[in-house]
Each structure stands twice: as structure tokens, then as C-alpha cells.
């Protein structure tokens, strides 16, 4: 049964907003429906696919499995907050390699990749596997995702190809 609505303060992409929703509502749906940030996707609702990946305190989390109450007053970044124009090194690498097909999984893939690269400057293939295995791509863009992450690592270090 839905719990009574509560006013919760969320800090998304550097903006603080109040939302009035039952506290058990998954963060995903608050981001998508209350805040209108539809770049974060729903794919499974059970932390199995990674389509809903956002950053909470800088770490990649599955927003479908985080109750909104647990995200109150903590910095959240969604795909829309990564850069206004697609200029983040990971987005640039994604463009360079032409990664997306249908694109539906890609915001989640990119958010996972950004979190990986924030902690691991030049990830090995095994590190990429470990960080990205939670993100399903039904179109099968994995080979390009891997290539783009390596490229983004190079871009981030300032080295042009």
C-alpha cells in the first residue's frame, strides 16, 4: 500500500527541488515524472539492467532500487546534468565511436562509464567488465562501449588520439 506523501528535498544536477511523493517511491520515477528529466530510463525496475543509472554522492546507483527518501539532500546527477551539450569526455567518445543504436540503454551506460572513469583513470578490460556488467544493451553495442571507454580515458587524460 502506498505510504502517505511527504515533502522531500532533492538536489538534482545542482538544483534543489521539493517533491511531494510517498517516501517509498523509487527515485527513478520521481526523476522522470516529478522532475521531468526523462533521460533516465526504466528497463526492469529490479536493479537488473542499469537503464536507470544515476549518480548519488558521485557513485553509480540504480535509481529504480533507491527509495526517494534515501536520496533526500544528497547530490544526484542524471544524464542531463553531465553536460549541457554532450561535451563530457565520455559523451565525446561515445560520439566518436558512434556507440548508440536504439539508444535507450545509453544514458545508463554513460552514467556507469563516467563513474568508472572517475575512480579508475585508465581501466583495463576486466575493470570495464566489472563496472559495466550491470548495464544491459539489447541492441548489442558492447564492443563499441568498450572502445569508447578506452577512448574517453585517453580524452580525459588530455591526450588527443
Amino acid at each position: 500500500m502506498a505510504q502517505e506523501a511527504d515533502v522531500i528535498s532533492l538536489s538534482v544536477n545542482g538544483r534543489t527541488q521539493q517533491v511531494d511523493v510517498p517516501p517509498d517511491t523509487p527515485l527513478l520515477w520521481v526523476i522522470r515524472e516529478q522532475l521531468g528529466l526523462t533521460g533516465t530510463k526504466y528497463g526492469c525496475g529490479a536493479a537488473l539492467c542499469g537503464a536507470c543509472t544515476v549518480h548519488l554522492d558521485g557513485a553509480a546507483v540504480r535509481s529504480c532500487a533507491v527509495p526517494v527518501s534515501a536520496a533526500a539532500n544528497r547530490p544526484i546527477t542524471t544524464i542531463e546534468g553531465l553536460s549541457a551539450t554532450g561535451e563530457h569526455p565520455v559523451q565525446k567518445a561515445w560520439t566518436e565511436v558512434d556507440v548508440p543504436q536504439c539508444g535507450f540503454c545509453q544514458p545508463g551506460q554513460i552514467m556507469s562509464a563516467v563513474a568508472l572513469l572517475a575512480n579508475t583513470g585508465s581501466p583495463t578490460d576486466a575493470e570495464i567488465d566489472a563496472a559495466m556488467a550491470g548495464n544491459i544493451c539489447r541492441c548489442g553495442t558492447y564492443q563499441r562501449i568498450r572502445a569508447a571507454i578506452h577512448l574517453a580515458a585517453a580524452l580525459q587524460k588530455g591526450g588527443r588520439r
Partner: protein
Amino acid sequence: MTPRISRRTLLKGTLAAGAGLVVGFPLAGRSRALAQTPAVFAPNQWIRIDRDGVVTIVNSVPEMGQGSMTTTTMILADELDVPIDQVRIEQAPANPDLYKNPVTGSQSYGGSRGVRDHYPTWRKAAAAARTMLQQAAANRWGVPVESTETEPGAVVHKPSGRRLAYAQLVDEAQTLPVPQNPKLKTPDQFRYIGKMVKRRDTPDKITGRGIYGMDVVVPGMLVASIERCPVLRGKVKSFDATATKRIPGVRDVVQVTNGVAVVADSFWTALQGRRALKVQWDEGALAQVSSPAIAKEYERLSKQPGQAARNDGDAEKALGAGGKVIEAVYQVPFLEHACMEPMNATAHVTKDACTVWAPTQNPGGTLATAMRLTGLPKEKVTVHTTLLGGGFGRRGEQDFIVDAVEVAKAVGAPVKVMWTREDDITHGFYRPSTYNVFRAALGPDGKPTAWHNRIVGPGLLIQKGRSPDYQIDGAAVEGARNMPYDIPNLRVEFVNKDFGVPLGFWRSVGASQNGFIVESFIDEVAHAAGKDPFEFRRDLLGKSPRHKAVLELAATKANWGAPLPPGRGRGIAVVFSYNSYMATVAEVSVAPDGLVRVHRFVSAIDAGLAVNPDQVKAQVEGGSVYGLTATLYGQITVDRGRVQQSNFNDYPMLRINEMPVVEVHILDSGEALGGLGEPGVPTVAPAVCNAVFAATGKRIRTLPIDRNELRKA
């Protein structure tokens, strides 16, 4: 109610479609789309150029990941001769009068048809537009049109060094007649076709700006989720929504064709409402149907003759002639598409208008569904095709459209109906499960003299009413009836047995299962003959040169025959589907616990002409993953009419840590264009299973691969 942020970007580009002057094409239908707009040159339904030089190209093929936005634009922009990076792309409205596929006659996309069916039409349309611009310039300069040529975005007259941008010719060009047989570019003049062009949709897809069906927001919109009968094809008998209606935020509960819809302010609330519903179901006939019984009945029927789909020579006689006979049974399961974006659609129905926003492969069908359910004429129905989060055949169906239109009609407000992943997997349209019996005979020279293949399973086209049940179902035998090997006595039979599990077109359709069975069994025959499986195939492909060419290319590139590290095996397969030829070599190893690891795919594809080579590769890469997921994991089973899988935990998808290297080699044969969305799938399962045999000596005859069978004792 919580405030809702409306996204005007959604309507940008979709609502604007149709403006402009359209001449020279049959104009039946929606006059609204043909309204005259001054200062716009719009020689046909695909191209508009305005006085500011903005070139708009209308993409009539839904963008489901295959790259239609890019490929359509490449073809039209090339022949029109405009710089591709300055083109605005608009998704076409549902309007079959203007945008039907010229080959199929409907505005519906499946069968890897987007590019191959439109290529000549688009080129002619764009060449006509270019010729009109050239004529307008020639008139202004007083020179013969033949003395003019174009550069991207401009007409030039080299002898006098004069130049006019297309934007400056708009007014004159639109008064000229549309040439019926414009001169097309020669291939050496192509700027984009055949070259690597970056996808036009990438910027929207890496920033979260792209609007998929699920992302549609309309002012005043409600969100609904539908409780569906756990038994396939079951119906609502009665329901009690008392508890549901007490939940704050639940707005309405309505019975619709596909179940009971809970309409709410938000999706999460709608889900809570579903949980509180009490529904009595009329489970229907499928409540008696379970997977083991289906397999048993298939097996029984496989002992009886079927209808002949092909009959060369006398296979029975040749099988009894005393040569070595090889027999095998192959089985494949039901499969669900699992588009990354679960099914959904949005609709708004008023007394005199209906608008649908849908991630659909079938805009024409969506229009027809909305007309049927609302009783409105086509002039009153508008369909916006959003981006599709995957299609794979699933999104040609109408069930999710029916959901949205019915619920929206019932509540009188715009409604988005969203499916959960569980709804999506348990209420799909499944790739048929089949049971297949093979017999082959070898002559004294080691060449096959007979091939007998009986396929038992449900006819997809028959179930969908697209083929009469007294005929052979074309989808059930594709890839088997037209197997390419030159064997004198060859019989392929089909036994139609349909238990009523809803069937659908699953990426590569019949070729998905028949590619596996034919290419696995020919491998068995090769081994029985003591021959190398690649050479055995090649020797039988004398009458199929295009098969042979891709087979040889894949084998060469994969270093076929070269030694492998211990424990690894190579397997090969070649399949024709959707007018394209594809061969794959797989390199696998099998761990002692039976885990199959695919290290590498080397594929060769002949799709006639590769319009955008990098996207040809992308489609083969994607097909490899789709096929490998099915090979290793894909299985839908039914228990008393209930689908037993529900999410990615029990219907797993291949993940990045299991991704093999995929190497794609393109063979531009110069033949007629082939499809690309699907042909990457059928070779995967047989190449992998043949490689498993090479590595372990164990033959996989049932998909998905059962690890236990490969475990070392």
C-alpha cells in the same frame, strides 16, 4: 496533484511534419498535410527547402536503432546534393497515402526493409528535386540545364563561374513541373552513399534529449498500468477495485480489452493500484497448455508426414539406397523480444479527434487501430512516431496501441499506458518453438545424396491470418526450404501445430531457428563424411555463388584451419535471409563446468551495397549479441498458459563481460540491396554450436545450450 513539466521538445519536429507544397505525387488522403506554404520548395513528401536554406528531410522509416534517420538522410541528401550535417530530420506522420512502403504497400516496418525497399524511390525523388533546382538556375541564367551542375547546396555553371544557392531558387523551383525520369547520380558522384557517415541521432541519445514513447509528456496527462491475465489470451471476468480506488493518486480503474487499467497521477501509484486490485479471470483454453506437453505433441506429430515445402528428386528412395544415413532431432524454444524499452503508448481521444504518440514499427497499423477503436476518419487521427527503444519485430504489433487508445477513450484525458518489464516478457508475441527431424544419406564418394527435413511447429503467418492454413507457412520454412546446398534428393516438410501461444516476428523470424537447424545438421553430415565442415559446405555451394563468396571470405579472415590454443574450437555457418548473405566463424572454448565462452566472431556479409558501412557493421555486431543471447540463454516456457519467465533474472541477456570480439567484413557485390537489421542473427547459433562440437565433440541439438550437457563428468 504534483506539478508536471511538459516537454515542448517532444512536439518539435513531429507536429511540423506535413507542411509544404507537395506536387507530382498521387495526392489522395489528408489535404492537411498538403497545405500550401509560400516560400518553400517541397517537390515531394520527403524534401522541403525554405528560403533560408533550411533543408528538411522526412524520415518515413521508424528509428528503432537500425539507423534509419541516418541512412534515409544519406540517400536523399546525396541525390539532392546538400550537406548532410545541415539537414533537419523530421519523423513522418502516419499517412500511408504518402509514406507507405512502395514494395509492401503499408506504412509498417519489419523484414529489414527500410532501405532496400525505398532506395530507388528516394533517389528518384531527390534527383527530381535537384533537377528542378538546376532548371530554375538554368532559366535564370538563360543557359541549357545540361550545362549546370551542383555542389552541396548550390547550382553552379562552371563555364561562366556562376553559382546560386538552393535557398535562392526556392520560389522558381516550386513553380516547375516535377520531372518523371530525372537523371540519377552515378556512383562515382556519391558523397555519402557507400561512405562512413556518423549517425544523426547520436547527440540526442547521449544527452538524454531523445524522446522515446515512454518519455512522452502531454499537458494534463495521466499514467496507467494494466493488470493482465496471468494466462496468455485470458480475459477479465470481473474485478473489484474498491481498495485500489482508495489509494491517493489513483484516478480511475477501467476494464479494457487487455485487462484492468489503473489510471493514476504517476506510474508508481498506478502500480500500487494494480497490486490492490482483485480480478477474476476467465483463463481460457491456454490454461491447459504447458511446454512439456507441447514438446511431446510435436514429437508425436513428427512421426507423421507433413506438407511438402520443397521436393527435389526422391529423398525417401535415396535414403533407402544403402548409403550411410545420419539422423538427428533439433529443438528450439519460444523467445521473447525483450526490447530495452518496455511496451508503451500515449493517446488522447476526444469526440472528434484522436492523437497517438507511440514507439511503433507500424505507424500505418497504429492509424488503422486508432480509427477502428474511435470510429474516427483518418483525417481526425494523428499518429506521432517517437524514437523506439528497440523494435526487433515486437513493435509492429498493436496490443500496446489498443491499450492506450482504449484507456484514453474511457477516461477522456491524455493517458500514457506503460508496461512493466514483467508485463513485457509475460505478454509478448513469441518466436515459435519448433521440433525438427533430419535425415541425410551419404553416397560412396562422401557427398550427400539425400536430405530430409521435417519441421513441426506453429505457423506464424497462419496464426496472424496472413496465410491460409492449407498452405505452407512461409515464415516457418524460410531458411530451410531454400537451403543452398546442392543435394539431388531434397525434401522439406512442414507440420503446422499451433497451441495458441501468441506468435510474433522475432528478429530474423523463421531464419532464426532454421538457420540453426540447417547449418548444424549440415555440419553433422560433414563430420559423418569425414570432411572439413568449411570445405564440405563450399563443395556443395556450386549453384549458390554468393553464399560461397561470403563463406570463403569469413573462413579466410578467420584463418580457418590454422591451429588454435588448446580447448578452443571453430565453427562456421552461412545463411541467406532478407536478401542478404552472411557467413560467420565462431571461436569458442568450453570450461570444465560446461560454461561456453565465445571469444570471437568473424563475419562476412553481402548486402548488395553497403550504404553506410559502419552501420552495416553495427547491425552485424548487434545481431551477433541478439543471436548469442538466444544461443546461451533464450528460453520462454509456459506452465498452464502462464509464461514462467518475467524479468532479466530469469530471461537473461548477454552482458559486456561475455561479449566476444566481433569482426565484420563487407562484400560489396553490386547486387540488389539486401536487408541488414536481421541477417546478422541466424548464423550465430549454428556457428557457436558447431564450434562447441569442434572443441568438445558434443553436438548441441537443443537451444539454449544446456551447460550441464557440456560439463565434464
